[in-house]
């Protein structure tokens, strides 16, 4: 007969304030199989775990129920306590009486206590049917895939490669560098962004352990942690990178002009182009959407001027495969389109630009040679209005979160404006100044003192044209009066949003994302770089808005996680996998069809003991099985069971309520 021990946690006041814990213990003691029940202030603490270990030995317990927080939180902790006491860790069940009772029924202590009692009873019933399970070892392919070649992807790739682990870095655009390559100077030190980034870019290209695949996308990911198989589509560049020397004759002669994405469309590039002069790899690609040779079969000038004959108009997309063990996702951010701000006249007035456009203008390698100009007439602006929180923190416009970096870069823009146009003045409309970071508050103070930037706390209600000027009408909340600024140029600090392809990528990788499209971490505080899927990690703004230091830190954290995963030759896998009872299997092969991982194959076994006739049964590869249980529910002869979630366990739970 089963001997169950029940351990109910107070979780300080978190559970004890809303659930009568002693009553739960008394209720548990009434269950026939429960031989020991006790409560404690913090079950997860060392003395709490010691109580479990002692009770296992003293009362010869056969399974353990811990009634505490969610099993997603501390299941591992308590499993460890069990194995320390010499018990199989999978004989543990966690009753979630915090997230599922005390925290959600705070107004009704009796109902919450009753429910907690029920949850404990269910867990006890389930634990009686628990079986001893053992972790499975699977081999690991020591190669990492990094998706995205911005600063996050670059840092992660370099850190992993420095540990002598091969990395495949996939970048969608023709060059790595990402958003950081577009920036002029960075807060709070005013380091030149390019100067600190380009050496890293070159390192990536020359690192013996990094395979850089630019102008390509991941289109498929199969497998499981340690043993993924990725398909990567290399987009046709129409340029043979092996023979191209990067001389630039082709793009100098190309007659087709296209808005330049690198400069936010302020100027133009050619149909054959390298995104920017310091591009890595510094090889041009042909933009198939605009090249007249590819569209209409006319032109071909680039091919004529290429001395190496590197241009190949017949090139097609190529799909390559890589076997990898872990993935780092670093797809970065985009700027929100501010068109919904009709009162600002976004799209109607040319002299309203967004902050990245301003960044490109003040950048030394930018389209205007480092001088901010009005897009309407090319004049240098003297009065510039910066509006912060355009989109961000505005529930009405659909984005509730703070974009985090706008306060800082707007202060930087005020300083840069002052450096470039000495007799200019910046007016900054803000909601709050959020300058939490090393040297950040000082930097904002510097912007205010050094440049004489006028910080106005309030929202802008309307922008309208008056002659050449833009009239910005807003509120000065500190004076409590309406203000109107005659501006030459208006710069909007628009919200940061994740890459628009994030949801599609998340589906492809099998990870989750939130309502904005940011990819979700496994735990917001304790597992901020991991996803719910083992072996897939997140770095940079693909997870939430963050600045460069944070991005770099997170990328390095990803690298540490990958290196940790690859430290041994095998990795341990949860034993929650399906098994077939061959005696019951009728060989219908429905399970083979539903398995999303192709983990089920068939085998022929003798019909009976010593018989020559054979029959077909299902066979599950436990290394490949991920334990979803699809096959269990489809099996009509109930021959398959999923360890940890067997039919008896779940039925026991249902009946015990």
């Amino acid at each position, binding site marked *: 007969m089963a001997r169950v021990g029940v351990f109910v946690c107070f979780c300080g006041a978190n559970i004890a304030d809303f659930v009568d814990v002693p009553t739960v213990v008394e209720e548990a003691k009434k269950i026939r199989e429960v031989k020991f029940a006790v409560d404690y202030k913090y079950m997860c603490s060392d003395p709490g775990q010691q109580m479990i270990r002692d009770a296992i030995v003293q009362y010869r317990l056969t399974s353990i129920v811990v009634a505490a927080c969610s099993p997603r939180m501390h299941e591992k902790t308590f499993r460890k306590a069990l194995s320390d006491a010499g018990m199989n860790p999978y004989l543990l069940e966690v009753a979630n009486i915090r997230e599922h009772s005390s925290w*959600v029924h*705070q107004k009704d202590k009796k109902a919450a206590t009753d429910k907690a009692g029920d949850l404990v009873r269910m867990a006890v019933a389930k634990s009686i049917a628990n079986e001893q399970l053992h972790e499975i070892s699977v081999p690991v392919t020591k190669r990492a895939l990094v998706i995205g070649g911005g600063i996050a992807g670059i840092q992660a790739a370099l850190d992993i490669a420095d540990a002598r682990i091969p990395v495949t870095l996939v970048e969608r655009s023709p060059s790595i560098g990402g958003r950081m390559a577009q920036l002029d100077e960075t807060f709070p030190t005013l380091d030149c962004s390019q100067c600190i980034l380009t050496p890293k870019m070159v390192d990536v290209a020359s690192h013996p352990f990094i395979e850089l695949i630019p102008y390509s996308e991941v289109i498929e990911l199969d497998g499981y942690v340690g043993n993924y198989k990725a398909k990567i589509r290399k987009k046709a560049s129409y340029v043979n990178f092996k023979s191209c020397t990067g001389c630039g004759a082709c793009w100098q002669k190309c007659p087709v002009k296209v808005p330049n994405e690198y400069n936010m469309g302020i100027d133009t590039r050619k149909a054959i182009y390298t995104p920017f002069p310091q591009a890595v790899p510094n090889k041009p690609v042909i933009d198939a959407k605009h090249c007249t040779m590819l569209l209409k079969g006319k032109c071909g000038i680039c091919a004529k001027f290429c001395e190496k004959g590197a241009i190949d108009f017949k090139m097609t997309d190529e799909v390559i495969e890589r076997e990898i063990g872990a993935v780092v996702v670093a797809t970065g951010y985009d700027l929100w389109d501010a068109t919904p701000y009709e009162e600002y006249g976004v799209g109607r007035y040319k002299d309203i630009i967004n902050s990245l456009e301003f960044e490109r203008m003040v950048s030394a390698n930018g389209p205007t040679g480092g001088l901010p100009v009005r897009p309407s007439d090319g004049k240098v602006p003297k009065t510039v209005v910066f509006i912060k929180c355009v989109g961000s923190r505005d529930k009405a416009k659909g984005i509730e979160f703070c974009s985090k970096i706008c306060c800082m870069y707007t202060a930087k823009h005020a300083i840069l404006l002052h450096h470039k146009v000495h007799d200019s003045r910046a007016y900054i409309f803000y909601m709050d100044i959020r300058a939490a970071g090393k040297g950040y508050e000082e930097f904002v103070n510097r912007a205010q003192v050094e440049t004489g930037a006028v910080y106005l706390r309030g929202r802008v209600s309307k922008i309208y044209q008056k002659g050449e000027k833009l009239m910005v009408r807003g509120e000065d909340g500190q004076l409590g009066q309406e203000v109107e600024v005659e501006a030459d140029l208006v710069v909007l600090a628009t919200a940061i949003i994740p890459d628009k392809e994030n949801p599609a990528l998340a589906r492809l990788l099998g990870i989750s994302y939130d309502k904005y499209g940011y990819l979700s971490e496994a735990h917001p505080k304790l597992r901020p770089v991991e996803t719910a899927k083992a072996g897939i990690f997140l770095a940079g703004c693909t997870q939430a808005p963050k600045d460069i230091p944070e991005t770099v830190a997170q990328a390095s954290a990803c690298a540490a996680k990958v290196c940790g995963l690859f430290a041994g030759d095998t990795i341990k896998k949860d034993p929650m996998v399906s098994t077939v009872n061959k005696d019951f299997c009728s060989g219908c092969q429905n399970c083979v069809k539903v398995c999303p991982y192709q983990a089920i194959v068939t085998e022929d076994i003798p019909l009976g003991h010593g018989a020559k006739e054979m029959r077909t049964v299902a066979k599950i590869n436990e290394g490949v099985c991920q334990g979803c249980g699809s096959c269990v529910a489809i099996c009509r002869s109930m021959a398959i069971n999923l360890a940890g979630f067997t039919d008896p366990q779940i039925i026991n739970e249902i009946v015990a309520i």
Partner: protein
Amino acid sequence: MEEVKDKIVSIEKPELIAPPEWKPVIVGILCNWCSYAGSDLTGTSRTQYPPNIRIIRVPCSSRVDPWFIIKALQTTADGVLISGCHPGDCHYISGNYYARRRFLVTKELLKMVGFHEHRVQFSWVSAAEGAKFAQVVKKVTEDVVKLGPLHLYKKENFSK
């Protein structure tokens, strides 16, 4: 077939009025990666919902055997809620599609034998939708309260 389906009505008897001390029991079977995580988020954000649901964790909604639903209705439950990842977001690639198909068939069967369709419900709740989970539980509980205690096919009624 469609016509026949429309003619099937619940044979649950509304005259069985709930005793005042009756509290409905709802069995919630949630997938580990989306809905269970979502229900945890409901807890973490202290969003309150009716205390009638008893949650069972399964790895994926495709693990839910129709047997579980029927067993629950036969024994302890007045209503059942199955919840999984949104279509396309399944942690196990395609499990929630199997779950959806299986659920629709099960529901037809249950309707045919006389259960009211609100007794068993299905929802998609992602790991980020704590507030939505509270709403779903609230709705299911309200629906079941309206229907009253489930006597149909309860085992104790057969033994008498």
